[in-house]
Structures are given as C-alpha cells and as structure tokens.
C-alpha cells in the first residue's frame, strides 16, 4: 500500500510549463523576502511565517489540480494564496493590516480567505485545518460536484489527534481529499526526530487504509506528478491519499525565531544543493528554454509585481473604525 515513490528519471515538461512554474515560485520567494523586510520595518506586526524554501510544494500541487478544487492550510499561507492567483497586493495589504487586504485588515498574516479562488484559509491552530479540509471533501462528495479538496499541514501538525480522526472518517466515507504534509523537518524548534516515534509520515494513514507516498518536495515536477496521480485517485471515488512532501524552510519558524536548533551549515547546504527555484532555473538553461537575460527579465517583472504590492499595502488606508463591529454575525435571511 504505502510505498516510497520510485523517482522517475526525469519528469516530462515543456518550455511553456516550466517557465510558468518558475515565475510562480519566484513570485512567492520575492514576495516573502519583501514581507520579511516589511516586518523588520514594523509595517507588519504579530506573527508572520514565511514560506521561503517550500515554494515547489504548493506550486507543484497547484499545477496538478483543477480549477475549483479547494485548498486549505495553516498560518504559513502566503504561498498558497499567490499560487491560487489571489492578488499579491491584497495579500500584502492584509499583512500590513489595511482595508485593501483580503480580510479588510481584520485577519492578518495567518487568516485570509477567498471564496472566489477556493482558498479556505489561513488557520492559526495547529492541525485544526485538517478535519476542516476533510469536511470540504465531504461537501464535494455530497454535492457530487467532481471537486477534490487539498489540505496542507506540517510535520508538527501531523501529531495532533484530530488528524487521525479525520483520516479515519475520510477513508470510511471515501472523501475526495488529499492530505498534503509539508514535512519541513521542524515544528518551531522541535526537529521531527524529537517529536515523532515513526518518522515516515506517509505511512500515518496505513491503519485506516489510506495510501501514502513520499515525494521530493523540492522538485516541483515530482510534486506535480505525485499530486496528479493522487488527485485522480481521489476524484475517481477511491477516497483520500496522503502525500508527504519532503521540504525545508530556510527562515525561522516565524519572524521572532532565533533558529538556534539547527546549524547555519544545514540551512546553506540545502539552499546551495536543493533549492527548488535553482533546480528549475538550471533545467531551463540546460534545455535552452531560456537564457540568463530572459531569466533576468522575469525577475524584473516579478520585482515590479511585488513592488506594486508593497506600494498598495503601504498606501491602502487603515480599516474604518466602524469596521470593528461588522462581520460578526449575518442578518437572518441574507
């Protein structure tokens, strides 16, 4: 049942697709770097969790699912929103707590949503999004709408009990849901070996009969291919699957994490040898699908998008004080 994926020699792709994936990942990277900088300048407050290093996971998943499929994740959510095509300006303005943000400034970095783009948040309580994601699967099945839900959670979250309650029900009821574990090796300062008795997280569904595969989460094409298979499985009525994406976060857990629990060498080794963006860049150059100038031009484009988002996030007004009392309850009948 659960099996380590046999890594196919070289996943198929083409110029157009690979350039697109490159752009997507670069947008996330540059957006997050900027967010980190704005935090340092005091424009973003509270908690702010960056996705730098993990870009290939959500980008690859997004390349494999269909329009209308849902996504839900934790507080480390900026990359997911950008991948789904939510506007960089709207996300950045939420980070700065302005009225132009996706939650009108009322949610912040950890809490954004988009009905239009099928993004269900942005959740601050570790593990809580997992049963909610299965619930989206239940709705899909109930409505027979052909959609699948994808729920992202961390290696740390994988120890929460509600994850297993959700897996059991998802398999029992054959819910069209993908449980995507972003295994970045750490939950705050706790490495996976210090929190977990059985470290192969893709096996965590075995006792419920949920199939799982482990995937190189730094390789966007491997992520895409594994997700395609799993999505077909879920969509065909066979029930959920677990995808364990092996990845890494370069920055601290949140902005205020001194990250003393790992060595500088460990981080730079991954940055130099396994960077998901460099991997795609090298293939683009090797296949001669782009030269350095073309890549520079993409970089410039992305920088402009991010700069525009920053400008918007700085100039969008604070929410009107009257917003304090809105959105608590709906009128009956609306």
């Amino acid at each position: 049942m659960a099996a380590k994926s046999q890594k196919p020699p070289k996943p198929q792709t083409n110029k157009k697709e690979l350039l697109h994936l490159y752009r997507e990942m670069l947008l996330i990277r540059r957006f997050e770097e900027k967010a980190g900088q704005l935090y340092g300048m005091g424009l973003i407050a509270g908690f702010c969790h960056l996705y730098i290093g993990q870009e290939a996971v959500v980008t690859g998943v997004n390349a494999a699912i269909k329009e209308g499929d849902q996504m839900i994740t934790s507080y480390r959510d900026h990359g997911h929103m950008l991948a789904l095509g939510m506007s960089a300006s709207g996300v950045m303005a939420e980070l700065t707590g302005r009225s132009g943000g996706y939650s009108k400034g009322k949610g912040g970095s950890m809490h954004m949503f988009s009905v239009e783009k099928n993004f269900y948040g942005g959740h601050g309580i570790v593990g809580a999004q997992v049963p909610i994601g299965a619930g989206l699967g239940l709705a899909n099945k109930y409505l027979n709408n052909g959609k699948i839900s994808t729920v992202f959670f961390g290696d740390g979250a994988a120890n929460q009990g509600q994850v297993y309650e959700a897996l059991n029900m998802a398999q029992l009821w054959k819910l069209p849901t993908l449980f995507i574990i972003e295994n970045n090796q750490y939950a705050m300062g706790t490495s996976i070996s210090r929190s977990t008795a059985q470290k192969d997280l893709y096996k965590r569904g075995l006792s419920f009969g949920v199939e799982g595969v482990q995937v190189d989460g730094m390789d966007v094409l491997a992520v895409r291919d594994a997700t395609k298979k799993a999505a077909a499985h879920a969509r065909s009525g066979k029930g959920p699957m677990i995808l364990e994406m092996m990845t890494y976060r370069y920055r601290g857990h949140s902005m205020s994490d001194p990250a003393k629990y790992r060595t500088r060498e460990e981080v730079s080794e991954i940055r130099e040898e396994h960077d998901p963006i460099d991997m795609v860049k090298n293939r683009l150059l090797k296949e001669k699908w782009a030269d350095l100038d073309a890549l520079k031009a993409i970089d410039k484009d992305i920088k402009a998008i991010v700069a525009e988002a920053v400008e918007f996030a700085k100039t969008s007004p604070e929410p009107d004080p009257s917003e304090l009392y809105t959105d608590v309850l709906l009128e009956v009948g609306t």
Partner: protein
Amino acid sequence: MSIDIQMPALSPTMEEGTLTKWLVKEGDSVKSGDMLAEIETDKATMEVEAIDEGVVGKILVAEGTQNVAVGTVILQLLEDGEGLDVLSAPIEAPTPDATPKPAPVSSVSSTPEPEQSTASVQSVPTEIEVPAGTAMVETSIRDALRDAMAEEMRRDERVFIMGEEVAEYQGAYKVTRELLQEFGEGRVIDTPITEHGFAGIGVGAAMGGLRPIVEFMTWNFAMQAIDHIINSAAKTLYMSGGQMRCPIVFRGPNGAASRVGAQHSHDYSSWYANVPGLKVVAPYDAADAKGLLKSAIRDPNPVVFLEHEMMYGEIMDVPDMDDYLVPIGKALVRRVGSDVTITAHSRMVGRALEAADILADEGISAEVIDLRTIRPLDSDAIIKSVKKTNRIVCAEEGWGQSGIGAEIATRVMEQAFDYLDAPPARVFQKDVPLPYAGNLEALSLPNAQDVVAAAKGVCYAN
C-alpha cells in the same frame, strides 16, 4: 543607488536591541540569504539576513552597540558595480543614550500614590507575610515564574514540567529558561504538538502520584485540551467521592498579545471560572506571579494559572525570601480609596491603577482591588470595599457577557445592594473577535480611559 539596511524588529514587541556582532565587513559581496549581523533582544539572539544582492558599503553602527532603535540604518549596501562614493553622507549612528528609550515598565504605576496613601496602604492588612527588612529583588515576571517552578522542583521531586518547546528551546516565551539544564530531560519534557494528548497524560500522571506543571504555549491552544482540563481534571475528585486527586497546574499566557489576530488573542478567565473543581489564578505583578505559582504547585487541586504575555518582560520587586508563598483565594487592595471600588485582574490591574491616578487628579478617590484569584473569588474583600465606597466598576480584558465583571456585579447586588449608590458598571473588551489591524485592535481592548469613564459614571461625575 545604495540600499539602507535598517535595524529590524524581530518580534512583535521589540523596540530596540544590541548589535552584538557583524558577520560581514565593508567590501564583502553578499547575496540574498547571507547573514549580515547578529542582534540580541531581551528574548533571543538572532541573525539579520540580506534580502538583496550587493556589496557591503558602510557599516554605520559598530558591533557591541546597545539600545539600537528599530529602524536605525545600520549598514548601506551597494548594488553591483557601484563604488563607495555613491553613499550618501554617513548617517549619524545614534549613540546609545541618544536612542529613545521605551516607556518605563509600569511598576511605577503599581506603587500607590505616595502623598495620598502611603500610610493607609500600610494599614491595610495584606495577607503576604513579608518580614520587615526583607530585601526586594528586581525580577521580570518571566523569571519570577521560572524561579517559582525551579524552587518547587527542588523542594519536591514529584514536580515536573511538560509542554511544547519547554526544554531545549527554553520555552516559547523563555519562561522555562535553564530548567532543562538544572533538572534534566526526565523532569523538563518537550512534547509534540498534541495538546489534547499531553494534557491527558498530565492528568494521568497527577492521578498516578506526580505533580505535573503543564505549560500551554498559549491558552488559545488549550482549547484542544479543554476536555481533559474540565472533564478529567476538574470533575474527578467529585465523581470519585473524594478518592481520586488530580494535583496539576495548567499554565501559560492568556489573553491578547499584540497584533496576533483573533485565534491567538482570547481571554479565558471567565471560561475556567465557570467550572467547580478548578482553581483559577491570574496574577498581576512579579511577586504574585511567583508566590501564587508556588502555591498553585503545592495545591492538591487542579489549578488553571493565567499569565499575560505582554507582561513577561516587566520588571518588578519580588521579596528575597526562601519560600515566598501567596495564598490562593485572597484579593489584594492595591490602592486604598473612598469613592469607588475598581476590581481587575492580570494586566488590567495596571490599567485600573493608571485610572485611579487620573481620577485622583479629578478629585475622585478610587480603591483598586487586584482579584489575583478568579475562582474562588474573594467576595469578602469586594463586598467590604463596596460597603465603604458604595460604587463599583468591574474591569477585565475579556468579553462582557457572562464575564468576571458580570459575576462580581451580581454578587455585589446580592450581598451589598443596600449599600450601592449607583448600579455596578463594567469595563470589558468590545463584543467582537479581536481584529488584526492596529487601529481596530486598539479600539477593541479596554484601557485606563475606559475605566476612568466608567468610574465617573458611577460617581455621576461626568
């Protein structure tokens, strides 16, 4: 164009820090992700990373400089191909003493107004037995809590602590600093992120004869565990006809921190106060934090101990005593007054004391009662005060409906109705989930002015 690198804020509350070490020198090329410098805050040492490519131009703040304000330009980075000459005139690096200091901690406001009440405050019998001549040690609330745990762990081998990041990381808010080093991993235990599971394990360990301290990284996450706190810990003594004890302390920061949004900013005082079988404690100052936590650890019952994240760094006096205990269940009159009683707990006590200062300037003498324990609530202290002042304002940071203030107001009406000259007033958080935006967050939370307005209201002094 050169890029100014500023002193970054590394945490929601950081205003300044020490630039401990430069990891680059002028002329070095850097790329995004390279470490530039090491910075120290009150909580941690961290690195500043480059986010742009370039060559290190001028270093403007020397290593070892303390109190560098967030936003100070510490380094100028040259973009590829630029020479040093493009640098703007060197910006003056603020000298340590020129740097604006954050407002002093509020230990000042916790001292009663001297001219008004020095004498009378001493005449109020406080329950704390501090022998005359006891020295005071300035201690942060964070360390006062740590000291309480360390002392009790030395005293009683059955006491141990567990929770997320309490051991190797030294506590998410550094409250368990150095406990692992002193007591070892058998007694300072890192758990996975499994609140429901480890709260249950704590309850079992308590029933099995140990004295666990269970730390929740914040009380928000204890909602995962509330079943064990209430159904397993609080009710068992009763359900077992008095046979089965559960001596356990559940502790961690409660309430609103700073700009962390609705799911991380919930005051649970009234939730736990509702439950028979629990004791619920919420200290305001460092001495109480220490003395009450020690009492909680020794208590044979389950105790919910609510701390305040925004106060961990506040430095206040703690009596230098071998065994400083503050009894659970006793309120403390923090300021004596005659016109109106103000009750509060945790951080709100500071707001109430601030309000009392303002009211004094307007000729209203407020008596401030620090509840310290929410359950059992010290009704006697409140009723006694109201019988003197004839008016009451109940202040809390949480929501109003079914809140602590609602309970106090009811008790006052039941037990001192005839003494009241005005209906009791309440001050509480606005009836909405806490918003992230800075301006809305400030509007949501009660402050000293809200307490002043309520006090003037019951004094008909508006």
